[in-house]
């Protein structure tokens, strides 16, 4: 995967991409397939429904990959546009969520490349962990994730991306090596160092808010 290639990948190149166990959280398979087929044919209602379901996943993945919250909506929106435009190229022979994740990763990397240097603006504000309403998900899970991503914000971009691709998207080291175009051992090294750093940060309670 070229980081600056915003063109959605074809499904054939994605068949080996792992997906999380999130399929159980979406609609039953038949209904899902019908909606997906309608969206691929360009039906707006179906596409809208599909995007609304995908949006949390898209935003979460973007946030895992970028520092701070300020650019998440911009990148998520670009990713949705890329998904809609790329839907006709999805042939259904790979896992849909894997394809979606790949499009989002590509869009995010392309955005990061374009905006190189802007990350210095990130101020690491601790903000909203002070009070979390629990309307949709357990607050502790939300807080945990916010805490973890705040710790990720303190790692290097290379270590961060290796950790996210490996532990969040469940790509193998070989896959990450291929996708990022870096040597296998380099990926392993980034993972090792990233894990050590993340564990140290978590153990120290050295998150911005001092622990969730």
């Amino acid at each position, binding site marked *: 995967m070229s980081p600056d290639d915003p063109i959605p990948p074809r499904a054939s190149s994605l068949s080996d991409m792992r997906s999380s*166990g999130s399929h159980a959280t979406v609609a039953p398979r038949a209904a899902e397939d019908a909606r997906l087929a309608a969206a691929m044919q360009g039906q707006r209602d179906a596409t809208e429904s599909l995007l609304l379901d995908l949006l949390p996943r898209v935003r979460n993945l973007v946030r895992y990959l970028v520092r701070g919250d300020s650019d998440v909506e911009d990148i*998520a929106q670009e990713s949705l546009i890329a998904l809609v435009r790329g839907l006709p190229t999805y042939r259904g022979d790979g896992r849909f969520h894997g394809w979606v994740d790949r499009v989002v990763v590509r869009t995010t990397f392309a955005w990061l490349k374009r905006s190189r240097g802007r990350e210095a603006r990130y101020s690491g504000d601790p903000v*909203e962990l002070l009070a979390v309403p629990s309307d949709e998900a357990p607050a502790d899970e939300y807080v945990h994730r*916010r805490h973890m991503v705040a710790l990720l914000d303190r790692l290097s971009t290379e270590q961060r991306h290796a950790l996210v691709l490996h532990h969040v998207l469940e790509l193998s080291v070989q896959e990450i090596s291929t996708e990022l175009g870096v040597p296998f051992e380099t990926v*392993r090294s980034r993972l090792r160092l990233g894990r050590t750093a*993340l564990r140290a940060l978590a153990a120290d309670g050295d998150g911005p808010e001092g622990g969730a």
Partner: protein
Amino acid sequence: MSPLPPGDGDEEPLDDLLRPLDEGSGPARRLSRKRSSALVQAALDAALQPVAPAPPSRRRKRPPVWLMAGAALVFTGAAAAAVWRFSASRPATPVVLTPHVPEPTRIATLEPVSLPSPPAPFVIEHPRPARPVPATREQARPEDLLRQANALRSEGKWTEAEGLYLRVIRAQPSSLAAYVARVASGALRLEHLGDARGALRQFQDAQRSQPGGMLDPEARHGEAEAYRALGDTAAEARALDAFIALHPDSPLGATARSRLRELSPR
């Protein structure tokens, strides 16, 4: 939850810290249904619009040879006639000759030579069509301009991005794109262009154009920040009050409350 991908010799678990991606809440900030819907709608609008035609090539399509030849002939003839006419019709300036002899001075005036009457004037029609470039630029869709502006902003080209945001606002002042452009322009002016007053105007215009819109937290917080930059602490406190009342769960709420406490008289 599945364990790590097998077979790469790097299977140290990290599930206690990082878990596989799902549709649950976090780590992205919570987003209201209204804003989620607006975000999806905006993406759909942008994605489903017909792709804009490619920008015109720099190399224009040439007109037919016969037209070019005719145009060249007409142009050459017209140019020749114009030169001839100009030189022929210029009124002769009286020339004063001063003789060398100290005789009484005589002024010789050369009379203009009569010339044949000039030919009828040519009407020269420009063989090329009017330049289409400015029109095309003005007709660019606001969504495209917005995308270009965002790209420029991402590259740190603040002034150019600001110019495009203003074009979006001028093109369709009441559109969603213009609303987004107003907020973006306000942020640019405040953060990068040193124009707090202009930023304030943009944030307030955005609130007026779409009351309670999807970027209302950003617009209201931006308004407070603009007042702060202008040194108007009373207005800043009022704006922060309104912001906190309307968006109590905003991630910016903590900093807003903190700032408000600073501003409150002890």
